[in-house]
């Protein structure tokens, strides 16, 4: 058959390579800044745009979507053309893809630093950018499938299976996770709430790792590793088995991010079991890669490209064993909320993704520029710097994780938490954070050496935008010959059918987990006491989201004694039904805040404390690494948006009364005024419209609803248990009343006044006819003995004897009452 002439589009590959290098430097620099902020809070610069809560999402997004994303596209655009013996389907689509993606990255950087975020990890970008991502992603897929259709090769190779799975997987994940209700160009609410939002988000979060950081890289491995080593792929059968098992099983494993959290047990169990079943399919990729190098290990010694590929594949094997281990519930209680996860993802990110990208670039750039690598020696230096940086990054953080976990759950011999002050457990590991900064600098240094090396290589070579080639046209083979052709081999020449089956394999796991969570009511049991946020609390919550508080503070108390002793009652599924989006967090750099609003609980702080802490955390405790948030005392809440927010909440199903949006602002101002007044009593002037007031209101809401229910329950129990068996008889002898008077003057005068008139409204009068807890002798006795902690009344049962309490009650009910009657 006659050969057809065609040209490979090398220019698009070059563009993506250049973008990879630029964004790589940016992403690593931002990462180093974030690392420095945790070691030295001064690097938050006191500016709202550069606090850790905003910088950290920028780092993750820049590395994943900008650096790794562009590298994937470079690798895919080059290898697809070669593997399918054709130019990309459409130059226009390629160009739109490239420039569209770079626009998204720039918009992401600007909006994240401006505090415009959805707070869903690795999906922080707001809805207009989400739509752009969808469009650009479809263009990428369209271009890819178009290229498959115009191919000149009968069968599609394993690398391309992985590219297809990447396209389809990311499309499904991104669309399902990004359903949100916009209220303005810059703000939307997730349509899922609480536990449902958590399931969707971590199904996405886990599989973003799978389908953005794993499957495309397995595809790249299947092309660049055999090319660079010039060896055949070890096992075709293994390729098939680990491809289908991996893409099917991955989609189920998301709930392993939510172990011991407020999630139905069945969903957690799916997360655990499917993670364990993923070990072999993941290792299938590593083995096929490493065994492909059989007999070529001498080449590895001489080639930096191969060295990076080998370290990358090995890091992949390590991470995909470590990940399933971290998914065991016992192990997860150590690794979750500590730096373990951070170390884990950096072994994968710097080792596997970094290794494959660097290996690919060292092989691909000389190839594209028709020259030799400028300096193999510099590439080797880069290799060793990079490897050392990974170790220097991971080891201190593993150490930090174990140290902090041990401190969190250590008890003194008397049975108290050994380190009740959270900060102590953080101060202990801050030196590790300093080492991490050094590791980051080392990694950046190696990267810059690579940029220099590749630039020199490009300069020395000659680049051809359109590389000529020729191949015979494809004549599609006919029906399957069941004897000569296996089913899979047949599928490999039916690209569309192959895509459909891939789609099916990808859809099942998510569907089985998400659909029941949303539609079967028993999965989210309701708690009567949980009420919707007030307008002020809702505004405060939006500030919490915008500032990225969730980056360091979880809102999820797990059912461990060492967590309930530290924070309060463990979290229940029904608590979060009005949380659009959920704010459970994934790392505790600061203490958990799920119970920050429980008055009398260990986490409660009053408004004045919060004010001072936001203004200057280091003044409160010089070892704190929290950034200051002084601008929250300057910026006002935009109440023009409040009615819209209330209506959005109503649309999502929050039961505000009909027409509440019209009253919301008045309610907001009234509640803000009480907090402002409260601050004024402590000598702090803060106008009610300031953002900090709203944020304090939100913090004071956290956990309060469920605890008020619990408090009611314990109180009831307490009453039945401690009700004296006999009625209290007042002691009306002059001696007893005199003793009661003395006790009253020593203990009660401060709040209730010498005549018992109280200081309304905070401290009730004891001589009028209104009684909060009743005026029978037994009621008064109980109020004194048990107190009313939520309102500031101290329980006296441990300080006064039963007789003394009775004397006191008698004095109140007899003497004070009579005195008042006389007047």
């Amino acid at each position, binding site marked *: 058959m006659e050969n057809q002439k065609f040209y490979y589009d090398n220019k698009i590959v070059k563009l993506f390579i250049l973008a990879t290098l630029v964004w790589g430097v940016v992403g690593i620099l931002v990462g180093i800044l974030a690392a420095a902020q945790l070691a030295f809070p001064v690097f938050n610069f006191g500016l709202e745009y550069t606090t850790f809560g905003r910088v950290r999402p920028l780092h993750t997004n820049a590395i994943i979507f900008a650096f790794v994303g562009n590298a994937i596209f470079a690798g895919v655009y080059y290898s697809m053309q070669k593997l399918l013996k054709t130019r990309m389907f459409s130059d226009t689509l390629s160009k739109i893809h490239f420039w569209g993606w770079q626009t998204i990255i720039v918009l992401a950087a600007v909006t994240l630093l401006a505090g415009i975020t959805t707070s869903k990890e690795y999906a922080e970008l707001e809805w207009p950018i989400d739509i752009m991502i969808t469009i650009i992603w479809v263009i990428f897929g369209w271009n890819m499938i178009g290229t498959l259709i115009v191919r000149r090769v009968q069968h599609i190779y394993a690398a391309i299976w992985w590219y297809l799975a990447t396209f389809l997987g990311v499309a499904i994940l991104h669309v399902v996770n990004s359903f949100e209700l916009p209220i303005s160009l810059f703000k939307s609410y997730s349509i899922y709430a609480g536990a449902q939002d958590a399931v969707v988000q971590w199904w996405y979060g886990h599989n973003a790792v799978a389908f953005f950081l794993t499957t495309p890289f397995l595809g790249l491995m299947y092309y660049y590793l055999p090319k660079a080593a010039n060896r055949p792929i070890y096992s075709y059968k293994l390729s098939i*088995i680990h491809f289908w098992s991996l893409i099917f099983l991955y989609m189920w494993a998301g709930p392993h991010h939510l172990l011991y959290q407020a999630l139905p047990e069945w969903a957690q169990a799916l997360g655990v079991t499917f993670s364990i079943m993923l070990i072999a399919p993941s290792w299938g990729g590593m083995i096929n890669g490493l065994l492909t190098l059989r007999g070529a290990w001498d080449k590895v010694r001489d080639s930096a490209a191969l060295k990076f590929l080998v370290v990358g594949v090995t890091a992949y094997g390590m991470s995909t064993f470590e990940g399933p281990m971290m998914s065991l519930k016992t192990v997860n209680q150590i690794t979750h909320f500590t730096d373990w996860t951070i170390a884990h993802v950096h072994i994968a990110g710097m080792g596997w993704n970094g290794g494959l990208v660097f290996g690919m670039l060292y092989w691909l750039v000389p190839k594209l520029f028709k020259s030799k690598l400028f300096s193999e020696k510099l590439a080797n230096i880069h290799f060793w710097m990079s490897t050392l940086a990974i170790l220097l990054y991971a080891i201190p953080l593993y150490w930090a994780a174990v140290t902090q976990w041990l401190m969190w759950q250590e008890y003194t011999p008397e049975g108290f938490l050994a380190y009740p002050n959270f900060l102590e457990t953080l101060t202990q590991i801050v030196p590790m954070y300093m080492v991490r900064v050094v590791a980051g600098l080392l990694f950046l240094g190696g990267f810059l050496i690579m940029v220099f090396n590749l630039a020199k290589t490009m300069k020395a070579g000659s680049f051809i935008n359109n590389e000529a080639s020729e191949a015979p046209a494809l004549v599609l083979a006919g029906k399957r010959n069941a004897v000569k052709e296996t089913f899979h081999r047949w599928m490999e020449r039916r690209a569309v059918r192959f895509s459909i089956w891939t789609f099916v394999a990808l859809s099942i796991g998510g569907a089985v987990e998400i659909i029941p969570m949303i539609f079967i009511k028993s999965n989210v049991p309701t708690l009567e006491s949980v009420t919707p946020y007030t307008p002020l609390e809702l505004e405060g919550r939006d500030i919490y989201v915008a500032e990225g508080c969730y980056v360091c503070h979880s809102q999820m108390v797990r059912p461990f004694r060492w967590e*309930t002793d530290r924070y309060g009652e463990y979290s229940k599924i029904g608590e979060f039904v009005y949380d659009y989006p959920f704010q459970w967090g994934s790392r505790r750099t600061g203490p958990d805040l799920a119970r920050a609003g429980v008055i009398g609980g260990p986490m409660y702080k009053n408004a004045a404390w919060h004010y001072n802490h936001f203004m200057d955390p280091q003044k409160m405790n010089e070892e704190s690494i929290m950034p200051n948030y002084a601008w929250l005392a300057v910026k006002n809440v935009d109440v023009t948006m409040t009615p819209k927010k209330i209506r959005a909440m109503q649309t999502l199903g929050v039961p505000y009364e009909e027409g509440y949006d019209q009253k919301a602002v008045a309610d907001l101002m009234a509640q803000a005024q009480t907090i402002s007044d409260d601050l004024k009593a402590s000598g702090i002037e803060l106008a009610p419209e300031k953002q900090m007031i709203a944020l304090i209101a939100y913090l004071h809401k956290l956990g309060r609803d469920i605890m008020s229910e619990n408090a009611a329950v314990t109180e009831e129990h307490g009453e039945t248990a401690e009700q004296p068996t006999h009625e209290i008889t007042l002691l009306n002898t002059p001696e007893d009343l005199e003793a009661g008077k003395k006790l009253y003057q020593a203990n009660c005068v401060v709040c209730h006044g010498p005549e018992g008139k109280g200081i309304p409204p905070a401290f009730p009068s004891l001589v009028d006819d209104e009684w909060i807890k009743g005026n029978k002798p037994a009621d008064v006795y109980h109020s004194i003995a048990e107190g009313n902690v939520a309102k500031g009344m101290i329980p006296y049962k441990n300080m006064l004897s039963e007789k003394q309490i009775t004397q006191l009650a008698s004095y109140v009910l007899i003497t004070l009452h009579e005195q008042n009657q006389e007047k």
Partner: protein
Amino acid sequence: MSEEKIKHTEQDDHITDHDYDGIKELDNPPPRWIMLLFYITIGWAIIYGAYYFWLKEGDHQDAEYARKSEKHDQKYQIASLSADDLVAFTDEVSLAEGKQIYTEMACMACHGLNGEGNAIGPNLTDKFWIHGCDIQSVFNVIKNGVPAKGMTAFKGQISDEKIQKVASYILSMKDSNPANAKDPQGVECNN
């Protein structure tokens, strides 16, 4: 593996029609151990599910918490200090310990490094007290807190003995006249 054997494998097991941009594929079976590992993990997953959901042998997390919490309570019988033992320490060792607890528990965040008070908490060094100035009252305020005013209850966090020590330390600061002392609050107290 010897050179000879590699050559042998390659020659015999090449799948002849597999050639993608020069990449060839061999027809080796997957290593047996990886398949075995795969089957074992699947078996483990089935057993795990059965253990927790069909046989209902394993505790779900609420039950696990209740069980472990009970064990915890048995292990640590937290002793309350009796009223008779509640006296203010005056010896240097106890006061030094009290001072250390003051720092560890971050009392200075609200009461100042030297008890001088700040915008949040009252001065602890003057004669004026909001909730009483005897050791019992101070002990009680630390233990149970004054939540409405922002004073944390420390009862779940430190032992009665430690509270006694820090209360003693606080009382020992009386009349120390630190710098930047906050204006008096509460009533004058003369014991």
